[in-house]
């Protein structure tokens, strides 16, 4: 497995929507390299014949009756929003102007 470098971290930070300063990228790249190195052995632990476990105690087809349950009012839903307008979340521009 490839080591993680500063460019990787910059790209990952962009994917994760976290703005990072140059100093933060340097530090994070160093720390993550150590962590990634320490978890490398995991890829050698299990052979192809071992199935993956996504869930410790799997339950299947967990459904409920198709009836309207509890719903929040618009007021409740918007109570923690940083910005709202006429009963709706106010979202910054999705697209850049150019």
């Amino acid at each position, binding site marked *: 497995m490839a080591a993680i470098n500063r460019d990787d971290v910059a790209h990952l930070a962009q994917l994760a929507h*976290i703005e990072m300063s140059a100093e933060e990228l340097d530090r994070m790249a160093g720390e993550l390299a150590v962590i990634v190195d320490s*978890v490398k052995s995991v890829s050698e632990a*299990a052979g192809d014949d071992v199935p993956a476990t996504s869930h*410790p105690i799997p339950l299947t087809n967990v459904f409920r009756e198709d009836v309207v349950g509890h719903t929040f009012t618009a007021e409740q*839903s918007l109570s923690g929003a940083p910005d709202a307008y006429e009963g709706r979340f106010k979202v910054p521009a999705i697209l850049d102007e150019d």
Partner: protein
Amino acid sequence: MTENNELIRLSAAALAEKLAAREITAVEVTQAYLDRIAAVDGKVHAFLHVNADEALAVAAEVDAIRAAGGAAAEELHVLAGVPIAVKDLIVTIGQPTTAGSKILEGWHSPYDATVVERLRAAKMPILGKTNLDEFAMGSSTEHSAYGPTHNPWDLDRIPGGSGGGSAAAVAAFEAPLALGTDTGGSIRQPGAVTGTVGVKPTYGGVSRYGAIAMASSLDQIGPVSRTVLDSALLHQVIGGHDPRDSTSLPDPLEDLVAAARTGNVEGMKIGIIKELHGEGYQAGVENRFNESLELLKGAGAEIVEVSCPNFKYALGAYYLIMPSEASSNLAKFDGVRYGLRVLPEQGPLTIERVMGATRAAGFGDEVKRRIILGTYALSAGYYDAYYGSAQKVRTLIQRDFDAAFEKADVLISPTAPTTAFKLGEKLNDPLAMYLNDVATIPANMAGVPGLSLPGGLADEDGLPVGIQLLAPARQDARLYRVGAVLESLLEAQWGGPLLDKAPSLTATSAAAAASSHGGSH
């Protein structure tokens, strides 16, 4: 003051008895705890918010019902009027929920977690919200955006994490009970280093509805207390099926309180996990662990050794699965629906840039580290090698447990490799911090239940050591059965509860009491 000191040192079970017998009132008990919080929390910092008015109102309601008598008094829950603290990762109406993060500072949930609804149904006064590592990511509470919690045994040391606030609150007699959450040890490891009891139930045994998710396939809410019986009492309040959590087990809850009351290990096989003691474990931890084994043997248990060879991969697999799930779960903090919004200082105000600035300002270093690590582990080209492999390791760990439970009814290990370390000591070494959870992580990976109880004080530093018991999935009752026996044998040796040996925190604290914070952070 003497009288209140006696009240706050009673177990939840003893409080419940005295309340039912009307020897004391719920208001007296709740006020005694609020007074204690005011006196010592300036030093301990277990609470992020104190909920005095509501707690006293609930207590007064319980007292009124008891005073009136009749059917309503008869129907009161056994813990009615017994106060409790709630980890600030669990949402509550009427109090802020911060998850220990700046991104949720001042946020109020419009709904209660299922476990909180159950506390309210039982009429347990909620004293407040306890401190934690941000989004439960840490083993020391030092990653809280609101400052660390201090270990009541030594205020310069960590109280464990992430649920250090809940454990310290109970250890410092600021609450008789608390709720925690455990993703890789966040209930059990703080229990170990503060000399208290903590239980991670079987995955799905307690509803996660309303617990702000870190890693959904690992997270579990559970009880924090000073005695094994008290944890059983609380587990019984919060446990059982919840249709609002699709991972909630439909099984009826066992009688855990009866298991704790009738503790018996005669003829039981208790398995020492070869890989979870010895090298890397502090000498004082090993000594107390070995003494516990002798006590259990003396009580009629058969001690056997089991091997779980794949546990050596557990920590690595955990640090792939947990960040992967956390990076997905924390994507919802986008600066739009709740919490903080930060606008970039220059340039166009697009949602992308607002999110980037919001998450940069709102998340702390450890949260950022885990989000980036999770994004990496899930990214194209690395998914099979990292996340896929880690999921296979999960299968291997489950198989190790299955094999071990064919040889033993219950497994035993130290809860943590060391006693409480100094605040700041491992803050700049993430990997050293992660190693604290080496003995607790396997249970989360497999979904099996675990309990930590105090095993004594280490010779070299006089600090609490935790003993961990593990049982097969859905067999939580075994933990209480064995835990209660070991607790009573140890307390007989010590001449009382281990917490009797903890510093009083008020001996020289007139100034601290005056400056303690009574409200929110």
